[in-house]
């Protein structure tokens, strides 16, 4: 049982649903949201350690969402997930305070490794704070 709480934000239903199932199967506390708005609402009411955020979404895109999340929860770590040529967006995301960016498709174990690192950083940041 990992001690961190994850929020996955992706508009691709099939992807979101499956990754949630797989993470839950690994006994990880995880929630899925299919849009930036919903993610922001969720963040308002719930504690989240690491957010996995798709860059390209209809409506509010990942960069926008990241900016808002960082306003609300500066300490929450965000991993950007990019599916296309938006490496720039990934980089931009990192400039906006994202922990890292990962290109789709990504092996779950790899992603989890990043999540763990992000959580570790969050813990350190909180310790400082």
């Amino acid at each position, binding site marked *: 049982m990992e001690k961190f709480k994850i929020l996955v934000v992706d508009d691709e239903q099939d992807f979101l649903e499956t990754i949630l199932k797989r993470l839950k199967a690994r006994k990880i506390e995880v929630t899925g949201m299919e849009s930036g708005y919903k993610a922001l609402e969720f963040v308002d009411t719930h504690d989240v350690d690491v957010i996995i955020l798709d860059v390209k979404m209809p409506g509010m895109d990942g960069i926008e969402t990241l900016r808002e999340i960082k306003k609300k929860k500066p300490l929450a770590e965000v991993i950007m997930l990019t599916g296309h*040529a938006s490496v720039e967006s990934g*980089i931009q995301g990192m400039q906006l305070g994202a922990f890292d960016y990962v290109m*789709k*498709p990504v092996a779950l174990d790899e992603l989890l490794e990043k999540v763990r690192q992000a959580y570790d950083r969050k813990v350190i940041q909180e310790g400082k704070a």
Partner: protein
Amino acid sequence: MEAQQYKKLWWDIILATLSFAVVPLFILGGVIYHQFSVSYTAKIKDNMKTLAENRAGSVDLFLDERISQLTGLAHTHSLEQLKDEDYLNKVFNIIQTRSKSFLDLGVIDEEGNHLAYVGPYYNLLKKVNYHGEKWFHEVMATGVYVSDVFLGFRKIPHFIIAVMVREKKKIWILRATIDSDIIDNIVRAAWIDKKGDAFLVNRENILQTTPRFGGKVMEPPKAPDFAAATGTSVEELDFRGETLLYATSIIKLKKWVLVIREDPTEQLTPLLQARFLAVLISLGGVVLIIIGAYFTTRAMMKELMRMEQKKAASDEVAMQSSKMAALGKMAAGIAHEINNPLAVIGEKAGWMKDLLGMEDMDGSENFQELLDAVNKIEYHVVRAKTVTHRLLGFARRMEPLTERVNINTVLDESIDFLENEARYRNIDIQTNYAPDLPLTTTDQSQLQQVFLNIINNAIDAIGKEGEININTRPIKQTNRISIEISDNGPGMPKEVLQKIFDPFFTTKEVGKGTGLGLSISYSIIEKLGGKIMVASEEGQGTTFTIYLPVR
């Protein structure tokens, strides 16, 4: 441009040059010749006119002198004196000593009888009575008479001068025969050049002197009829198919007409020479212009072709980069469209694998088959992912990182990566770095990717046993660095060389290369402001040259 088009353009330029240069030349030549011809012809006509006037004047002078002589003789002597033939003979001899032009001298009374005669035809003429002769009446009427040339009793051309004298109540006539040879001689002086002619005609157009060509005294001349001429004139006239110059002048004392004829071709020889010279100079000019036009246009065409080639080369470069940009966009689009479903497939396969591990399915007879299938799916998702990720790498448009980089060091690091592989294949990597290579601001890791790509390709190309040479060199003039990576592998044919930077073009076996390495390298170098070039010769090897700006 096609060779044929060049040739046509060449001809066009030559023809235009020629027409613009040759036409004025000919016009100039023509005008100058025409002016020269006009003034020269005028001068010749002037000369002829002067000559005609001069000769006519001489004839006039001669006649005038003879008349004066005769008149003087008549008035200084009485009829009584001159009737005495001995005395007349004495006087004739005195005259003869001064001028041989008098052939005889006669004194005639008003009845026409010869009172006295001195001369060679004494017996023949002494008894002649002139009363019926036309000249006798003329002299009686006008006092002085000059005859036309006639043959008379002597049958040789001569003419007479007669003066009438009134002495008290007697009228007598002093008559002299003049040798027309003398007038002939005066006129003959105008026979100039080889074809020039001069003669006298009377008012009946009968020759009074012997012309040089054609005709005899007392016959009509073989020339146009000038009997009616009234003054001095020069004309060019056509006579029996011959165009000749004729000058006429009037002998005042006798109303004879002096005709001078000249062949214009002879007179105009200097003009013809001038024409010949003008034509020669013009032709020389034309030849010079043609040669000049030929060489200048040839030089021009060469320059044009060189520029055209240069332009074609730069067009090719521009085309290559726009091709890369377009392909990059397309590749990014494709990668994006594939990555998302690929992510779903990957996740689904992962979930299936998770499930296979969770459930107690060990017993199931197809458990192993399912697990294998899921593993294969994952494996191929990863394989597809590498392709799409490389595509995205190729399409990457992010600003390169900028750091101060020593290219030699980057090359050394790249070689370190591949050294084991090279050693294993017995390939010797030789480096020849410029020690004074300037640092440049660029993206080290991207550059490394390029170097790794090219060196790796070189190793693959050689296969086994060979040599790779890497050298660096600063180019001060253009403020660039050149990096040369050459191998002694098998080289490439032209067709391959043309496509070498195209994405997905590979000569490696399926699964070994993505065909993206060099196209990514190309776009990286472009983004870093440099240039990458390749030269290859089959059987000789391949050389990649990278130029990077120093900044």
